[in-house]
């Protein structure tokens, strides 16, 4: 109460409150209920239903409490007879326009109109009219929810949620006065409109006008279980609504600082795949990949694996085995995956699928800051002056963060977007740097050049006390003149100048980046150039600044943090370091291997060379998702024993000898770490189908079958504690602390450490920030007369990565194939019509796709997604990759496109 600055009296009760809040908010916080229909804790006061009128001493008449600020000394009455009479009159008006079918309404029991009618004591509706909206039909076009206009009370909460939370502006009102009615888009169906199905409107609807189809069919859940979303790296918190053993609802948590009650279409509606009939439910086994699979018991598959593995170990040694763990699975799984390989098998051949997305981020940021993790927090977006977003389209890739950025944009935050594509996100920027693909290094060095030339860099005190290597950096940067930068990036000099000056002129500039920064042949260097620009302008270590990778999958951060990488243990403690080796050996009670491990692309090559004979692949599908996947498939096909652990029969599983049925995030316990280093719980809400088991448990049982138990109990919290004890930055974190809705952001070295919102605040992880000055080099992939186009690949809002999950949901109603996008002028020259068939070819493969004209592209570029394995897109791509990390060059691929008419 010490920070409260005002005190007021509500219904005779003295209440202390923070200044700047409405009477309604103050009352709500004090658990005093004031009836309302249009107010919502997520939205700004609106003042439309007028149910919340109160009397204030010294003021005439009544005042709406939802829009009136509470002030010091105010004396408020909320429950006088006169107020109840007025409220009864308002509810009577509402009900005169409402169908009285409460018993069959799916909102029955969950209807705010019902609640207030009961609260005010409405017993009779004296108006003689018939409700006017009954003849308007239900819009059921959206795959996930209905809109029933006859039940709508026109409170505008749906519109406000769409405008102010999601920031899509897909809803409005048509008509006015009594004829006001909610519309989607240009008065279309929800499906045809701009609606992105985030569900915020449904969440807000106080009555049964907007209702989830699943809930409507299933009725109310029996229980709610708090968990973390299993899709992208934003890490939204949800309450999973469970009825029997079925998921019937995913309700975003309003008390989470990550999503604040918001969600995207995938998080809220696309978890239905957990109940999909194609789930793997029993272990499968076959001697040879030419055989058919047959069902087997867990004992049988464990015996099969241990027998083969022991044989390989004996014949070829531990390094003939390799494991790819999953950045979609838990920290505990990733820790145990690393431990299985290092402690049981005896090899450092463990890697995870973050290899193909943010490995370059880890490398680049490690070099400059000494930590491969996002420096700041999502809430910094709310306070920063400027956001520099590079190689990402959060509206599609990280929608909840995308909304957060758009909200910040509305409050006046400046936005610079570096992207070769003029995406809808780029279109809302102040400055769009539409660079040539593969020139990130040049771009950020060019900006640094302008900053230095104009003396816009941070203070000399900053340079002297917090940084190193400035002079060599200056020398290198001197070469990247605006003219040269412009020539390389094709961005006009004046645009570069404007961007550099804007970035350097604000108090706090923050950077977010996506795979458009990392998936390059010089991805690590691009991240170094970006991080060095932040260092140069002093934009690190403070609120509203920093370098913040937008992590693709839910646990990209955690899978790396857990040491499921060939060169490091937990939290990037070097596996080369003898001291570390000894520490880990002591903890695990076994001598850990000292020989350098292989990244998984290296393992694939080693398979070809006969050096790796068996692989264990947990929750990744590299036969589909990796570039040049013919090569991957050939390699997998060559293995003597491929074990695939997954929830569906994936493309990779088709090459497996053993398939292990795994549990989804809703069927598992453990933790995920989101892109802002926040470690959050997932909690088992459902039983896995059939014999499917949690990922970590399978690994633990396999280790036991190998004769070397790696867990002390069947509790995930014990696995966590064991890991944390080995890891100084996690030492202060335990499951008990993760119970709070904020969870905790690492580093938290001691139990009383509050966690870290902003890293590097007084000292960098590596001591001083290191200016990295790699020279600019052209991408590996270059156009030629045979392959004159550069193709960029990316993802789409309605699908998630390989699409394994999302293709098995109604999301496919929005998007059922991948399109090859081409600039209309290029298309015209080649006789390619919008929507026509085309051949896409590279030296590796030629595939048929459907072309789509898009003026958002640069001429000479193509764009496509890779969600549908039947298209075979990744077979066209080359194996070219970041020289420092092996992260594939997904974003620059030389190809040809021809009409297939």
């Amino acid at each position, binding site marked *: 109460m010490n920070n409260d600055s005002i005190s007021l009296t509500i219904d005779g009760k003295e209440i202390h409150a923070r200044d700047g809040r409405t009477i309604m908010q103050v009352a709500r916080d004090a658990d005093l209920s004031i009836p309302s229909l249009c107010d919502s804790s997520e939205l700004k006061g*609106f003042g*439309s239903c*007028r149910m919340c*009128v109160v009397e204030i001493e010294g003021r005439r008449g*009544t005042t*709406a409490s939802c*829009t009136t*600020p509470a002030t010091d000394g105010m004396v408020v009455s909320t429950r006088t007879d006169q107020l109840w*009479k*007025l409220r009864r*009159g*308002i509810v009577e*008006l*509402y009900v*005169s326009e409402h169908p009285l079918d409460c018993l069959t309404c799916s909102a029955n029991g969950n209807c705010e109109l019902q609640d207030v009618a009961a609260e005010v004591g409405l017993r009779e509706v004296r*108006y003689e*009219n018939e409700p006017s909206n009954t003849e308007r039909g239900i819009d059921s076009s959206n795959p996930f929810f209905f809109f029933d206009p006859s039940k709508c009370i026109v409170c505008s909460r749906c519109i406000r949620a769409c405008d102010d939370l999601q920031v*899509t*502006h*897909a*809803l*409005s*009102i*048509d*008509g*006015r*006065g*009594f004829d*006001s009615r909610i*519309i989607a*888009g*240009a*008065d*279309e169906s929800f499906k045809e*409109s*701009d609606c992105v199905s985030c569900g915020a409107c449904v969440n807000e609807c106080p009555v049964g006008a907007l209702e989830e189809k699943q809930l409507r069919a299933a009725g109310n859940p029996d229980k709610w279980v708090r968990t973390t979303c299993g899709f992208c790296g934003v890490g939204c918190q949800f309450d999973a609504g469970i009825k029997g053993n079925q998921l019937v609802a995913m309700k975003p948590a309003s008390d989470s600082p990550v999503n604040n009650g918001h969600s995207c279409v995938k998080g809220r509606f696309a978890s239905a795949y957990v109940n999909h009939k194609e789930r793997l439910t029993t272990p499968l086994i076959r001697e040879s990949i030419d055989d058919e699979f047959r069902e087997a018991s867990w004992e049988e598959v464990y015996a099969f694996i241990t027998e083969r593995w022991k044989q390989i170990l004996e014949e070829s040694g531990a390094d003939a085995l390799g494991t790819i763990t999953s950045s979609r699975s838990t920290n505990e799984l990733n820790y145990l995956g690393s431990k299985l390989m290092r402690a049981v098998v005896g090899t450092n051949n463990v890697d995870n699928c973050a290899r193909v997305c943010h490995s370059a981020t880890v490398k680049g940021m490690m070099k400059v800051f000494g930590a491969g993790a996002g420096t700041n927090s999502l809430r910094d977006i709310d306070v920063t002056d400027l956001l520099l977003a590079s190689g990402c389209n959060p509206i599609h890739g990280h929608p909840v963060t995308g909304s957060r950025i758009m909200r910040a*944009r*509305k409050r*006046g935050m*400046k*936005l610079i977007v570096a992207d070769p594509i*003029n995406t809808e996100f*780029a279109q809302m920027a*102040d*400055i*769009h*740097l*539409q660079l040539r693909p593969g020139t990130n290094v040049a771009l950020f060095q060019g900006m640094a050049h302008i900053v230095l030339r104009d003396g816009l860099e941070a203070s000399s005190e900053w340079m002297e006390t917090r940084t190193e290597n400035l002079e060599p950096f200056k020398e290198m940067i001197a070469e990247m003149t605006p003219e040269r930068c412009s020539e390389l*990036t*094709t*961005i*006009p000099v*004046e*645009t570069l100048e*404007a*961007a550099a000056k*804007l970035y350097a002129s604000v108090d706090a500039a923050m950077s977010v980046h996506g795979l458009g920064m990392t998936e390059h042949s010089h991805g690590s260097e691009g991240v170094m150039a970006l991080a060095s620009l932040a260092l140069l302008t002093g934009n690190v270590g403070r609120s509203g600044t920093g370098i913040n990778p937008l992590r693709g999958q839910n646990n990209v951060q955690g899978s790396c943090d857990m040491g499921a990488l060939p060169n490091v243990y937990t939290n990037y403690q070097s596996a080369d370091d003898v001291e570390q080796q000894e520490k880990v050996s002591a903890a695990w009670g076994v001598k850990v291997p000292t020989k350098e491990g292989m990244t998984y692309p290296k393992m694939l090559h080693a398979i070809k060379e006969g050096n790796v004979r068996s692989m264990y692949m947990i929750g990744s599908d590299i036969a589909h998702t990796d570039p040049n996947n013919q090569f991957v498939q050939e390699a997998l096909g060559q293995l003597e024993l491929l074990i695939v652990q997954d929830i569906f029969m994936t493309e990779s599983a088709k090459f497996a000898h053993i398939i292990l049925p795994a549990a989804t995030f809703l069927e598992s316990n453990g933790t995920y770490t989101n892109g802002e280093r926040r470690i959050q719980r997932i909690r088992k809400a459902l039983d896995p189908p059939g014999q499917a088991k949690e990922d970590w448990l399978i690994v633990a049982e396999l280790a036991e079958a190998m004769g070397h138990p790696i867990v002390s109990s069947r509790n995930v919290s014990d696995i966590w504690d064991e890991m944390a004890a080995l890891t100084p930055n996690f030492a202060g974190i335990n499951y008990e602390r993760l119970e709070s809705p904020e969870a905790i952001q690492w580093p938290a070295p001691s139990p009383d450490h509050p966690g870290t919102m902003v890293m590097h605040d007084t000292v960098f992880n590596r001591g001083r920030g290191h200016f990295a000055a790699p020279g600019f080099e052209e991408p590996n992939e270059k156009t030629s007369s045979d392959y004159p186009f550069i193709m960029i690949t990316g993802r789409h809002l309605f699908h998630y990565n390989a699409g394994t999950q999302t293709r098995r949901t109604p999301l496919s109603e929005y998007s059922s194939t991948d399109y090859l996008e081409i600039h209309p*002028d290029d298309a015209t020259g080649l006789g390619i019509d919008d929507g026509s068939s085309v051949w896409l070819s590279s030296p590796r493969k030629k595939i048929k796709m459907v072309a789509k004209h898009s003026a*958002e592209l640069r*001429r000479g570029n193509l764009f496509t997604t890779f969600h549908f394995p039947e298209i075979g897109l990744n077979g066209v791509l080359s194996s070219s990759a970041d020289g420092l990390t092996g992260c594939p060059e997904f974003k620059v691929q030389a190809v040809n496109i021809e009409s297939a008419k």
Partner: protein
Amino acid sequence: MKSGNGTEPKVAADSVGLQGRPLWNPARPGHELLESLRKEITANGMPGADRIREIAEEHTTTAAKVRGVIGYYSDLTKDPSSVKVCMGEACRSRGAAGMFDDLKTSGVKVDMIHCTGRCACGPIKVEGEPANEPLTKTGVEGGNTFFVSMDTASRELGSELLANRLAESIGERDSLVRTGSRGLFHLEPMVEVDAGGQRVAFGPVNEDESGTISAAVASGDLAKHNKYLGPVAELDLMISQTRHTMGRLGECNPTDLNGMRRLGAYVGLAKAREIGSAGILDVVEKAGLRGRGGAGFPAGFKWRAAAKETSPVKYVVANADEGDAGTFIDRMLIEGDPHSLIEGMLIAAEAIGATYGHVYLRSEYPEARVILQQAIDDARAAGLFGTGYDMEINVGAGAYVCGEETALLESLEGRRGEVRARPPFPAQEGLFGKPTIVNNVLTLAMAAAILREGAEAVAALGTEKSRGTVVAQIVGKVQRPVCVEVPFGGTVGGLLRDYSGVEGVTAIQVGGPLGSVFRTKELDEVELSFEGLAEAGGLLGHGGFVCYGEDFSPREEVIHWMNFFAEESCGKCTPCRIGTRRALEILDRVGTGEESGGDRDLLTDLDEVMTNTSLCALGGLAMNPVRSTMEKWPEAFTASKEK
């Protein structure tokens, strides 16, 4: 987008400058959207979904927002080609309903509009394009100068035809100057002549009499003409007025900047710039200037609040959405002395540190737009804006609520004109979230007059709480429809009798459609002031007095009012959105055989809910004329009447 070339940086253009518009906000695309839609719909009819998407993209907004805006404004949803009959109270008191029915029966496509500001000469119907540019004639020095009003009400009464005929009959050396109206409509069309340094008038003049007037002027024997009225300044109805704000109306051409300056335009601004913000605030407060849009809120209070804000961008908005039927002084000022408004806005801008001005002008006043635009361009060119200020006109699109200041701001932001909850008040967070003062046209013009006349001179007039002058617009079934400016004080009855005559007037609605209705003699002792009317259970509003004759039909008018409110409700708050409709349904039954036993009680309860809980004055006052009429004419609501 320039392909492969990067887009041009937008930041420099958008984030700075006088307008201070948001960098990116599809929910607030700006008023240009309404302009685009008006053009689009006039040219191509109602846009389909694909066209809506294109328009949305052009304005950096979304299809839903565009469609929502179209659906809100009657200008955008009504057939542009139909004949519009004014259903404002003044026109209704003079037979508009009959005119509407006649047109409809004759097969003409006809729609209703609510007030064109020509209340002095209804009933009004509007067909097609606005009137042609007024005819003028420039003579030579030494010739006679004739003056004929080009005010749209004057033109409705025949001044354009008169001017045309006059131009043919006056001498080659003579000039014909077009002016604003003096406001004595019973004398219009009027011809004035400069005679020996004073202006003399003839009126009302039939166009066929133009020859005799030019002859009389040529002969020098003016007084003998049967329409000769004498010197304008000595007319009974002029001499008794205190024309602080209306003083230049009718004197010279409205867009003759130099002429207007010779008559005192921009004198107040010069003083304002001398004394600065603090000085202006003091003067305005000392003069007791109260907003004339209806609520009578102290202007100085608003200005001071906005002046206190530190934002580098602030707005002054002139509310020229004069929607109350029976009031038209804003239109008269803009058409007759636009510089008085511009000057008032510049003074307000000086007082609060505003960087940009908007005049939100209703679409029913197209002629006013042309004149005001010319005046703005002239004032800017003459350097009167100084540095750091500019302004523009934004035309409404047919929505009565947009006269409410927050709905007006929403409309200026290119949104549906839904009323905002206050606080925050516009002075703190107004247009595009920036400090904004919204004042009615008359208020701003009065501010200019106050700066010119001095606070003391103004404060010396009127009553304790209603200081200075009031502009009364007295129309309907009266002998002399007028617009006059007199000091506050005295009685309403006296004002009406002195200026207009009230023989045969049975009912008077004061202060616009939301105002109360009085039996004529009830007003005899009511003080002419904000407080006087309030004490009598009414409101002064914008100073409109609509007088009904013997044919006043209480039941029909009550239904008309509620129908109007239901149609014009913005729909944001429930008491107004549903309440006006339910009230209309009940009123439709009350006094007929269909009345239910509980209808009166239900109406009383509904009145209480609407009056006490509505978001703005539309819902809050909607029962005002209904209640007062039902109380005073109970016999009209006895349950024996046929429906």
